[in-house]
């Protein structure tokens, strides 16, 4: 497919455009927060607490008088960073495992990897995340690890499944006959062909990661104060919900819109990469 038509297809995908646009808003807000936020999020201004949205504070202020818009901007940074690295861990470990399992199908290695995956799936993920932070203490890093661990089997399974069918294809068989090793074949021939799948799944896991980070920091196990995070902003707002509903509204909307954006983008990408599905849709 020519570059031009991919671009055209991409542009014609409504989901992809809306999704990317939504996600980009928060990515840009997060990046911008490194350089500038309307107010300093570490400065407390208790006399001006609980202000409703106004020209000075577009989204109002929280219980310490901090500017909620600024906190959401910095919180975007936390959420995106945690989710991104967690997906990275999942892909970095899951993809090689999946490739290896497929290359040595039905071997002990395959069995071990797949059973191990089943086992990780069987554990209630949030509980394990809570246990991990109970062991190592709450921090953004431990939240990343807790979320990342549960991403590994997702990618391992996906890659193994896709790779298994690729291994039966002619060109892979001929590469084998030509004497290429399994590792080499996996990386040269299999991996590029599952890349699309990985991008789609990566987007979905990324959005799940945002949700997971929000849950963890909501129960107090994510990034620690004074670094703002969306989940903790919601936790803080909970007892004040009748007093200052705006404190609960805006961070929640930020999570919903980011996740929605990523999911739409994921759907759009899948349609883009999978012409068959695309045809079925229209």
């Amino acid at each position, binding site marked *: 497919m020519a570059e031009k038509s991919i671009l055209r297809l991409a542009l014609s995908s409504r989901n992809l455009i809306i999704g990317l646009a939504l996600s980009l808003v928060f990515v840009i807000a997060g990046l911008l927060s490194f350089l500038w936020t309307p107010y300093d999020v*570490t400065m*407390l201004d208790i006399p001006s607490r609980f202000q409703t949205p106004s020209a000075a504070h577009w989204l109002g202020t929280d219980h310490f008088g901090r500017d909620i818009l600024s906190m959401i901007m910095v919180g975007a940074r936390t959420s995106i960073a945690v989710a991104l690295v967690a997906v990275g861990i999942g892909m970095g470990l899951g993809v090689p495992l999946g490739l290896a399992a497929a290359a040595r199908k039905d071997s002990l290695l395959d069995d071990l990897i797949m059973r191990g995956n089943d086992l990780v799936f069987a554990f209630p993920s949030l509980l394990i995340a809570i246990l991990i932070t*109970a062991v190592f203490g709450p921090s953004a890093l431990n939240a990343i690890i807790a979320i990342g661990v549960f991403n590994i089997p997702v990618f391992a399974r996906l890659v193994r499944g896709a790779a298994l069918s690729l291994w039966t294809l002619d060109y892979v068989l001929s590469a084998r006959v030509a004497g290429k090793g399994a590792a080499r074949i996996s990386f040269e021939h299999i991996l590029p062909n599952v890349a699309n799948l990985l991008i789609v799944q990566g987007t979905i896991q990324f959005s799940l990661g945002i949700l997971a980070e929000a849950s963890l920091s909501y129960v107090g196990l994510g990034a620690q104060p*004074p670094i703002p995070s969306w989940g903790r902003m919601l936790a803080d707002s*909970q007892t*004040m919900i009748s007093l200052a509903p705006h404190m609960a509204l805006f961070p929640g909307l930020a999570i919903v819109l980011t996740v929605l954006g990523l999911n739409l983008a994921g759907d759009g990408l899948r349609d883009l990469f999978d012409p068959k599905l695309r045809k079925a849709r229209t």
Partner: protein
Amino acid sequence: MMKAISRSMFAASMMLTAGAAFAANTDVTVGLQLEPPHLDPTSAAAGAIDQVLYSNVFEGLTRFGPDGSVNPGLAESWTISDDGLSYTFKLRAGVKFHDGSDFEATDVVFSLDRARAEDSVNAQKALFAGIASVEALDAGTVKVTLSDANGSFLFNMAWGDAVMVAPESIDDIKSNPVGTGAFRFDSWSRGDKIELARNEDYWGTPARIEAATFKFISDPTAAFAAMMAEDVDVFYSYPAPENLMAFEADARFTILSGSTEGETILAMNNKQAPFDNAKVRAAVSYAIDRNAIIDGAMFGFGTPIGTHFAPHNPDYVDLTGNSAYDPEKARALLAEAGLADGFKTTLKLPPPSYARRGGEIIAAQLRAVGIETEISNLEWAQWLEQVFRGYDYGLTIVSHTEPMDIGIYARPEYYFQYDNADFQTLIADLAVEADPGKRSGMLKQAQTVISEDYVNAYLFQLAMVSVVKTDLKGIWENAPTQAIDLTSVYWAD
């Protein structure tokens, strides 16, 4: 005008519900944030156990009054030998445990011996440390001999950890407590509520209400809703001060704001650099604006303190002037200590909101004078392990809710690791001093020493704020101990 209207509407609604309300008003539902893990006050530190059971179900030889005074309990009277070493308690006659058995001197011997035994799991075992022997002289008289004179022995015996239990019912005490109090234990649905019923055979003035329910609602939002829906008649130690304005505006409710024994402090690790330098500790104290913390974290509820002592105590000295908010002075002191560029330290925070919210405010205040803190929010178990037993911290915030606990500053192994020989001598002398005038002077001196040494930064006395239905009377306003004494609670008609 608005007030008049709302009042008449209130009166009208009262008339409509009066019939039903009158019939229902023989019981009380108390909202509590924490549920007791089990029901044995003599083998755990959990304050919730005492809140439900102290004085209601279990009684001690002496008991705390609402003002913190020590009054006769199951011991009607006592005599103290001249050397202060032996206490002879005359027990009340005709006292029965809820299972019908008699309360006698042998029960006192059993209870005290159990608490001070080698394998005792009493959380306040130190209360019994000075006891050399306990003997029953006859069924109604007990003699306790101390190894050293102890000015606070009667005070110690009033604690929830020193209540009287019976050998017959001790095995099931954790799920079926049997005491001598004005209420007997009725039922417990774990995770939800505990019910008590009036003890009709009570030895003293019987309770005015027939039944009491303790409902455990840990989530402040749910507590707010439960109170507003009148599912709960009194919420003891209401967890979210930010909601109190809403109750204040509502005629159905009254807010009781009393004092507690909770000195809330920013503790410093006195053995760890740079806090081993008194100048640095002073700098931290000067950098902190107590009023901003009370306002920002507690929504105005709390009394500033300048030392580790309860302001409602007659011997309290106001030493807040020793560390009045002065960031310039804090910076100067840091410079004198050779830390003109500030330093970095850890701030470890246990779960209560005074610590979590106060911690964020203190972090911002310290940052303003150049001290960077790395906050970690810990669970209690982690806090005990890392801070309290592991000394692995720079700063922490905690409220010390035990009454009269200035003596902890004489324990060099205590987690803030203050080691001052003079102070230790002072406390040792205080323990054996019986003269009230001298005791008062020594207590004042002790307060001054720790304040001037800037051992910790003293923030505020925790307020006890309870939300009560306006026509419910007799609820303790103050919390001299962790107790919710319901024996004299009643509904006004």
